[in-house]
């Protein structure tokens, strides 16, 4: 199963676009380095549509209370409801509970098109 989501240049780095792979709602995210990632467009918590949220960065885990180090700018997908954070480049894992991850899909660039498949 595969689907053409958009032209490569239609999705700017730091942005995302929603699509469907057959019946499956997906979100294709483009990180600031230009790479594309396709994830299930449904929060693991209560099912909110993740593409209504935002792509942002996150505070890195630290041993020091009160210390903030913002990392992964453009690589975190945050849910529009409760704000749960997913690491786009790390298999869509939930930052607060990395055992849990969004389903991810293959992305290929074919003749300038962003193509998602499973």
């Amino acid at each position, binding site marked *: 199963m595969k689907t053409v989501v958009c032209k490569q240049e239609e999705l700017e780095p730091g942005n995302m676009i929603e699509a469907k792979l057959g019946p499956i709602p997906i979100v294709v995210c483009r990180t600031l380095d230009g790479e594309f990632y396709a994830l299930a467009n449904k929060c693991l918590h*209560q099912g909110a549509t993740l593409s*209504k949220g935002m792509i942002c960065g996150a505070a890195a885990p630290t041993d020091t209370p009160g210390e903030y180090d913002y990392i992964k700018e453009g690589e975190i997908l945050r849910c529009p*409801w409760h704000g749960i954070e997913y690491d786009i480049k790390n298999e869509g894992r939930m930052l607060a509970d990395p055992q849990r991850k969004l389903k991810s899909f293959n992305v290929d660039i074919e003749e300038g098109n962003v193509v998602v498949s499973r």
Partner: protein
Amino acid sequence: MAKKKKPIIDVDIHERATYYDLVPYLDNPWAKYITDADWTQEKHLPYPIMGIDGLDRADAKSPDGRPAGNSLSFLQEQLLDGVGHEYGILTSAMDPSPSSMHGFYGMAEALAPALNDYEIENWLDKDDRLYGSVHIAAQNPQAAVREIERVGDHPKMVQILLPIDRTPWGDPYYHPIFEAAERHNLMIAMHHNEPPSYYGNYPRYFVEWHSVMPNTHMVQISSMIFNGVFEKYPNLKLMMLEAGFIYAPALMRKMDTQYKYLRHEVPWITEMPSETMKKHVKFSTQPVDELSKEEFEQFVELMGSDEMVCFSTDYPHWDYDSPHNALPKLDKDLEDKVFAENARSFYPKLQAVGGKVPL
């Protein structure tokens, strides 16, 4: 054949009036304070709200750009029709309460009637499914009673919304409000607004404040119980909004135990506090704690009643709970009670009007 949808009565929906929406309902100088002086309530909470779109769900702005909860048609589309509500109880997003007025009580006394009129005209009279809360300026019980007398008989006003603030609600200072509630067949509800969570202070992090919201609710319930409010006003019932319900069993046990030791201090209390709570107090689910079916049932069992928990979404706020995904799949009897029947039995006026817009 289509599966029959479960009935949903959502006890906490925040329709939003902007200050400018209230200007037509305000006399001067109050209207001019908004239009000419750009007045806004000072809020206490020191943190930003940590959702993507502040206080709101990031997908709840209406397509015409109005803030979340401000458009009836978009609320109908996204929530009432989208989910399939039977009824929803409006609790507004504005709070003319002592916590946010700092002594400027005249403004609160002007805002509360304006907000009620706005709510009736723009929401209650326009959708059969929506029922309302009477907003009051609680710091002036006499003014509050006048407002309850003015709008309390509206067929779709089902409760009085009370702010949680420094003076716990069992205090006799507030009792005229309860008398008025009984006269008009209104229930009362308390919704967490911005109460400090310890000794009048706020913790360092929002996550701490948000985790211990039940503290402030426990203070209010205990105050109402031990000050004998429910003995004095036997028809009064209390809905605690937006602290969940899993703290309830602990509070019930604690109060029963303490009552056995200290009954001599409160001899007007004539039954175990937990029994009074079962008859008079209900809890909204949201923000629901993540529970398995077995865990959910255990908490209900510890409460000793399956008639105390009522579903709520808190739409359109950032910690909205989905009616389809927030709770575990419950057995049908408990599911019916939590999602609809407990709320239906709580609001006598909801049963009386049955969803018809009054003529």
